[in-house]
């Protein structure tokens, strides 16, 4: 799926880090569930909804998680960021972002070699609040 997205569809937001399912840079949502696109056959996702980082914003308005990553400087080089953000959206939607320990545990599949982890936790907490407010409106 990752190669299809990047090489054929020109959606280069999902990144190829390790290509072995170990780094999380290629994370996308399939029917709302986070998956590693490097370890997924595109054909196996036939008829399902695949959301990449390109599909997260609502027109010109950033998704709360994207905005939170900017607000908290939750990246340095930015290479892992699309995967971090997709994973973080999944993490919040699963209800696994209720405290710092949970966020760290359930985001542990996404590596950041710049070690922006503390800021990523802060970003997820901010976005969690915004997403919860939005979902109750």
């Amino acid at each position, binding site marked *: 799926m990752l190669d299809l997205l990047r090489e054929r569809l020109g959606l280069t937001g999902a990144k190829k880090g390790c*290509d*072995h*399912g170990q780094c999380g840079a290629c994370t996308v949502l399939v029917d709302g569930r986070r998956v590693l696109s490097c*370890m*997924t*056959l595109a*054909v*196996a996702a036939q008829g399902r909804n695949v959301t990449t980082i390109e599909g997260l914003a609502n027109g010109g308005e950033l998704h709360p998680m994207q905005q939170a990553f900017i607000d908290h400087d939750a990246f340095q080089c930015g290479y892992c960021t699309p995967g971090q953000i997709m994973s973080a959206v999944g993490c919040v939607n*699963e209800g*696994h972002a209720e405290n710092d320990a949970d966020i760290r545990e359930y985001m542990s599949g996404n590596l950041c070699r710049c070690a922006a982890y503390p800021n990523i936790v802060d970003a997820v907490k901010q976005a969690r609040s915004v997403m919860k407010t939005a979902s109750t409106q």
Partner: protein
Amino acid sequence: MRRFTYQRAQGPAEAVQMAASHGATNSPSVPSIEYLAGGTTLLDLMKLDVRRPDTVIDINPLAAAGYGRIELNQHGLRLGALVRMADAADHSGIKSAYPVVAQ
């Protein structure tokens, strides 16, 4: 990755039949088939050219046929072969009765 044929089995009988129709054996002279479940190992080894199946049979639809079920009762815990590790780790009953498994 080498070219391969992809098939999707809707039930266990169909999965067995699909493999049988390809003459699945360990002989190198007949086409090789592999079942695809989570894919963590198979797809990785296919990309590394270690596993070279001619046909991949996706058995994930079997999860809906009971193979993705977690059963927890007084006799113990039974995990269907297609239960996702994340689902097992997040199962409230497993977390309380089998914390090491959840971990």
